[in-house]
């Protein structure tokens, strides 16, 4: 059939490839519009067109839908009341009617505005068309982005690919830029695919992947989701770089905060995502300066044999069991009197953060930061990332194999406790070596010092450790109350 995305990109103007594309285009065009959907039993539902699943069949999702005409069948949807999200599967779908629209013709953007966007879009399209080899990367990129939103990995429906790619065209432009249309596009693309793919998957396999905390940079978010598809970050980076080079991005200001907020919003929209196993890398650039940032790899990590106690329980792909803190190891870290207490109650919550790749990729990261009491609540898990973000003021420090910290890092100097940066702010040191392009998300929870005094404080910058450690080496975690997770 119908949708041959590759042909499209190789400038094949066969009608069959353009057919599917036109369907995708029309689908995208009606997003956000109120539509009437006729279903098999004769009922009609009116709602806002949110997204569609175009993998193999055509199913749709409406937002704020209500039944406007009752059909013959008994449905699980009543006539009364507003349905927040209504999924209509392909088998039930008869017709989607969007009233009062105008399809763009000849490059005219129907009810959109902006010749600039047109130009940019065309540039994007034309620039990317000849790059057949790029397409795969972009598909992956798109997929990786989607994975962030609980996409099913490995879906390779042609139409969907093309669809995603079409979105990707705009999304690609976002990479590396902080201009608003692109970031919005990225957001749009992501969100767009979120529901669509969540719908398609119908299983929470990817639930764990969700957008990074607010502080994550837009382009990072867009670029670097690599969890479910095992997408090599290098690919993304390459693609991104390539795309950036080949396009002239219109310089529209896009507030990153908007992007962040949007992502946070997306994050909240997908509450289930928090609960699941980490599935994506959350790249965050390390900011050496700035407010007292205690960039700390919030890794709850419990070595099997070590007595060190991970501050937060972490699920690690490597199989390290994470634990709630247990103040037993003498660590440089400031004492975290409340660690135990905090963790006690929150132990269950710690399963979320994942040391992830840090554990098994040997990306020991040294963080110069204040140490906080145990992370009470990891925000998400990142199997592929070295750092787990914790929400509470506790933080777990992932210490590289080097025992500097354990044995009294000379670099550490006592500092008065001060609030850490906003909890959600995560900084990721770029990992060198092994995982190219992958960054470890670090959690910088605000320091919650039970005792109020930290024995020492690290500098704010987070030096990147050389990947000298074997991938499977557990990352020692600098725990609260002076725990030091020894690697074993």
């Amino acid at each position, binding site marked *: 059939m119908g949708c041959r995305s590759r042909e499209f990109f190789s400038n094949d103007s066969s009608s069959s490839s353009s057919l599917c594309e036109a369907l995708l285009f029309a689908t995208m065009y*009606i997003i956000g519009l109120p539509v009437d959907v006729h279903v098999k039993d004769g009922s009609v539902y009116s709602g806002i067109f949110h997204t569609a699943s175009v993998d193999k069949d055509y199913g749709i999702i409406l937002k704020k839908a209500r039944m406007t005409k009752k059909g013959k069948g008994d449905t699980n949807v009543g006539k009364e009341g507003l349905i927040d999200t209504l999924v209509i599967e392909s088998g039930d779908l008869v017709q989607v009617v969007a009233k009062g629209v105008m*399809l763009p013709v000849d490059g005219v953007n129907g009810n959109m505005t902006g010749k600039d966007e047109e130009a940019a879009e065309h540039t994007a399209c034309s620039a990317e068309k000849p790059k057949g080899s790029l397409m795969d990367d972009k598909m992956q990129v798109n997929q990786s982005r989607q994975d962030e939103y609980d996409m099913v990995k490995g879906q390779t429906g042609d139409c969907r690919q093309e669809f995603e790619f079409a979105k990707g065209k*705009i999304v690609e432009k976002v990479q590396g830029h902080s201009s608003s249309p692109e970031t919005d596009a990225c957001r749009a693309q992501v969100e767009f695919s979120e529901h669509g793919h969540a719908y398609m998957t119908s299983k929470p396999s990817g639930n764990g992947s969700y957008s990074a905390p607010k502080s994550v940079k837009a382009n990072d978010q867009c670029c670097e989701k690599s969890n479910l598809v095992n997408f090599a970050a290098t690919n993304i980076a390459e693609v991104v770089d390539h795309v950036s080079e080949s396009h002239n991005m219109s310089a529209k200001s896009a507030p990153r905060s908007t992007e962040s907020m949007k992502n946070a919003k997306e994050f909240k929209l997908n509450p289930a995502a928090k609960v699941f196993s980490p599935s994506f890398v959350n790249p965050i650039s390390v900011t050496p300066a700035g407010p007292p940032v205690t960039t700390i790899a919030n890794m709850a990590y419990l070595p099997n044999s070590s007595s060190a106690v991970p501050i937060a329980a972490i699920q690690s792909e490597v199989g390290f069991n994470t634990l709630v803190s247990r103040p037993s190891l003498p660590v440089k870290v400031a004492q975290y009197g409340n660690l135990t207490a905090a963790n006690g109650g929150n132990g269950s919550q710690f399963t979320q953060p994942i040391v992830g790749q840090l554990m098994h990729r040997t990306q020991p990261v040294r963080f110069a930061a204040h140490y906080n009491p145990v992370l009470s609540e990891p925000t998400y898990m990142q199997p592929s990332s070295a750092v787990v973000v914790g929400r509470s003021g506790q933080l777990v420090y992932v210490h590289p194999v080097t025992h500097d910290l354990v044995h009294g890092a000379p670099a550490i100097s006592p500092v008065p406790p001060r609030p850490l940066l906003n909890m959600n702010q995560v900084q990721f040191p770029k990992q060198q070596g092994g995982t190219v392009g992958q960054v470890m998300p670090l959690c910088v929870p605000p320091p919650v010092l039970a005792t109020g005094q930290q024995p020492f404080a690290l500098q704010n910058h987070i030096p990147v450790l050389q990947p000298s450690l074997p991938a499977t080496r557990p990352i020692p975690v600098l725990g609260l109350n002076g725990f030091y997770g020894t690697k074993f």
Partner: protein
Amino acid sequence: MATDGSNPEDLGVGCLLSIKTTYGDEFEAQLITFDRLSNMLVLQEPSKPEDPLRNIRMLKANYIKEFIFLGQEDNPVDPNICFVDLSALQAREEAAIRQAELEAERIGVGVTSEAQSIFDALSKTLPVRWDKTVIVVMDEVRISSPYLPESVIGGTPAANERVKKVVELERKRLQLRRTSGQ
């Protein structure tokens, strides 16, 4: 041109069709595209002379009962040059959702249309919201079923009076409408 409808995909994109669905819907539209994989047709209804806006339909081909070929026009939508502005889409959807939420708040669930009319009338001049089946005005005055002036409770005497008056007026209006309408 075949009018038997057995091979819709043989017809070119851009042709005008008069389609009748298995549910009895009949409309005229121009074929924009057809996706074989999902069996979906994308159609565009003709626009009225003054109104550039038109309806777009996505119809599953299974449900075409019959269609008549009316003519052939150029493909109005060239996918190679069309584009969507994702950011605008996003914004549009968000705005629509917000609007829908607002409107949903205005509609009482499980209330009579009369109650809804009273609510709507009140909302023109006063901040009102639904609390299950109780109309809450300015967060102080409550009007519960049967939404008579006597059912107005609470709030400051002035507010109460005001609400009572509006309810009275609205009821009268409804009465008039009902009697005149019949």
